[in-house]
């Protein structure tokens, strides 16, 4: 096969040329990544590949809109333009760390935002902290990000898991009653949700007539659903996510649970519901932000209205909660940079925390100083299976709202677990 001299020579020549090409071309590619100029660079470390790609894209779009708005107004720190560098972490916490380092050390980003997946949020938070760079977790919900694994340099925009369970818990009890059945996925997120709802139960006197832990990738919820039918609760809490969520709701329809027992849960996302089959579009779920509800965006909220209008024009679909996370994170980050006239992480953090502000929802919010969690309201919505006549995306019917202060752990509780470790 390889015994003619011609073959050997041509192989070596090809190898040599390729290597030469790589050696000279490679640094050229890489160098173009580091041209800093006089701009402020914000990095985004997101799950653009993989199961969360849709959410990551929404977050990125929202962030870009906020950045464009600031650049239109003249940039930050006396006219410096803001640029945005996105890197894909492939839904892998290890790669997320490498990308964060690349964003900060090679691409010279002065701050980093992003994450959909909690594991990614946790690993990125640690990596940015090690490099003394401000990080805003846009969409990773795990309590630890602003709890046991908190850092002075980490902020979180989306609601924590604790907030989700408590907001929905209070609303659902108010609306449906206090006899609940819980179907819980048997992994970290599920356990966190379970613990949260147990706390709600303690606080407002809810009775659990049944609780089932379901294994990963359960496709068959019939044993649990038969139990639900037999125990006749007011409400069945469906905590499973992703494909399991779809299967469970489909089977709720198949088993005739819909109509007999109310269905609810901690959260649901517009992008996901839009992809659900009609028979799974049931129940009442936590919503972190919604574009078409006076309870959420208020009336006469010009910032919200222009955000929604421009987003819709550009992307032909309304912004989702994920878009809101991206928008709010970038907007407040740039505000802080502008106010502090610095990109030093500690200065930025001190500027960003505690300040009350108005944004694209009705009411005010602030990043709490004890844990850097954004304190803003959360809503409960029923699903409209077919949207409204003019708008197939208008899938949520907001029915209740819970204020931030009632739904997150208290300052003293958080102070016990979260040690921000400000640099001296």
């Amino acid at each position, binding site marked *: 096969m390889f015994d003619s001299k011609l073959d050997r020579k041509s192989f070596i020549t090809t190898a040599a040329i390729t290597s030469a090409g790589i050696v000279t071309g490679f640094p050229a590619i890489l160098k173009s990544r580091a041209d800093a100029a006089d701009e402020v660079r914000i990095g985004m470390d997101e799950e653009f590949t993989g*199961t969360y790609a849709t959410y990551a894209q929404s977050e990125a779009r929202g962030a870009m809109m906020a950045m464009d708005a600031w650049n239109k107004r003249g940039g930050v720190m006396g006219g410096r333009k803001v640029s945005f560098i996105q890197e894909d972490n492939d839904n892998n916490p290890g790669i997320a760390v490498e990308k964060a380092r690349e964003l900060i050390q090679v691409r010279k980003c002065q701050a980093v935002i992003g994450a959909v997946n909690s594991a990614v949020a946790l690993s990125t938070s640690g990596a940015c902290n090690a490099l003394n760079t401000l990080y805003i977790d846009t969409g990773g919900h795990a309590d630890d990000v602003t709890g046991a694994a908190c850092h002075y340099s980490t902020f979180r925009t989306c609601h924590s898991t604790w907030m989700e369970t408590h907001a929905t818990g209070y609303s659902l009890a108010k609306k449906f009653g206090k006899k609940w059945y819980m179907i819980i996925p*048997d992994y970290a997120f599920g356990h966190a949700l379970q613990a949260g709802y147990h706390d709600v139960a303690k606080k407002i006197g809810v009775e659990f007539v049944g609780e089932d832990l379901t*294994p990963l990738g359960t496709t068959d919820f019939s044993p649990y659903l*038969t139990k639900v039918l037999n125990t006749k609760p007011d409400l069945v809490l469906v905590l499973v996510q992703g494909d399991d969520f779809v299967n469970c709701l489909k089977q709720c329809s198949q088993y005739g649970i819909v109509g007999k027992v109310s269905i609810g849960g901690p959260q649901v996302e517009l*992008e996901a519901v839009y*992809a659900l*089959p*009609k*028979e799974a579009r049931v129940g009442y779920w936590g919503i972190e932000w919604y574009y078409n509800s006076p309870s959420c965006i208020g009336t006469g909220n010009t910032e919200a209205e222009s955000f929604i209008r421009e987003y819709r024009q550009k992307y032909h679909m309304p912004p989702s909660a994920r878009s809101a996370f991206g928008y709010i994170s970038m907007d407040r980050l740039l505000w802080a940079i502008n106010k502090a006239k610095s990109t030093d992480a500690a200065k930025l953090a001190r500027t960003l925390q505690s300040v009350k502000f108005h944004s694209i929802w009705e009411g005010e919010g602030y990043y709490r100083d004890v844990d850097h969690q954004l304190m803003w309201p959360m809503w409960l919505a029923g699903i409209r299976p077919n949207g409204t006549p003019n708008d197939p995306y208008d899938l949520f019917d907001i029915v209740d709202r819970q204020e931030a202060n009632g739904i997150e752990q208290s300052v003293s509780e958080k102070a016990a677990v979260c040690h921000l470790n400000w640099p001296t």
Partner: protein
Amino acid sequence: MAQIAPEIFNGLILGAFYAVVAIGLSLIMNLTGVINMAHGSYLTLGGYLAFAMVSAGTNFWFALAVAPLLTVIVGILMERTLIRPLYRRDPVYGLLLTFGISLIAEEAFRLIFGTNGVPFSPPVHLQGAISLGFTYFPAFRLFIAGALLVIIVALAIFLNRTRFGLRLRAAVQDHEMIAALGTNTQVLYMVNFALGILVAGIAGVLAAGLLGLSPQSGNSLLMPAFVTVIIGGMGSLYGAVVGGVLIGLTISITTLYIPAASEISMYVLMAIVILVRPHGLFGEEGLFG
């Protein structure tokens, strides 16, 4: 009792799925030595093709009949171009190549159909539950149970009672001899592969209706299918069926009593079987070590 019976039935259905996928895997492995890591992708492909057809307006039954055939065409294309060079070679080649194919397939599905999965519902008259006296049971599941049973029986008849099946089994024993005896082994290999993919395609359409359809949904059936092959033993149809049923039952019953252990239960079962019968329950000595 009322609680266990539907659970057992569900376990049997799940087991039948694993068995059907395992048979497809086994057919390909036995004859050609290729461990088809892309088998799950064919399941998903069948599901997506059916979804595309139903979205375009055909009814479910048409999709159920045609989508697997289209999947087979894709499978044959793969076989002739990529897989054929690997027959009878070191199994790592087949493993890696098909692994690569599964990566490409998953990403392609994501690009074409989106990352979140698509809604695929069983036909309207199969939705809803039928009363079985002591409990309700979804009609679609009953249909699936029947369909899988038909597939298994059909395969058994094909492999054991037809001439082609005879040649297949002979080729597994000694492929050189059967070539020497005049059988066109290229055609044999191709039909064998096609059969494995056909089975996967049908299972894929059924699974899509039952379990949901997303770029990774086929792969969730792949690992249990591998364990089924190990437990049942390679080279044995009965082994795949018995193995699949055993696993399905084990998982459902463990889910009922010790939910935390349910995923690991099939591996525990596998470990026990390997210790007691290293070639699997019905495996034949000498086939692939």
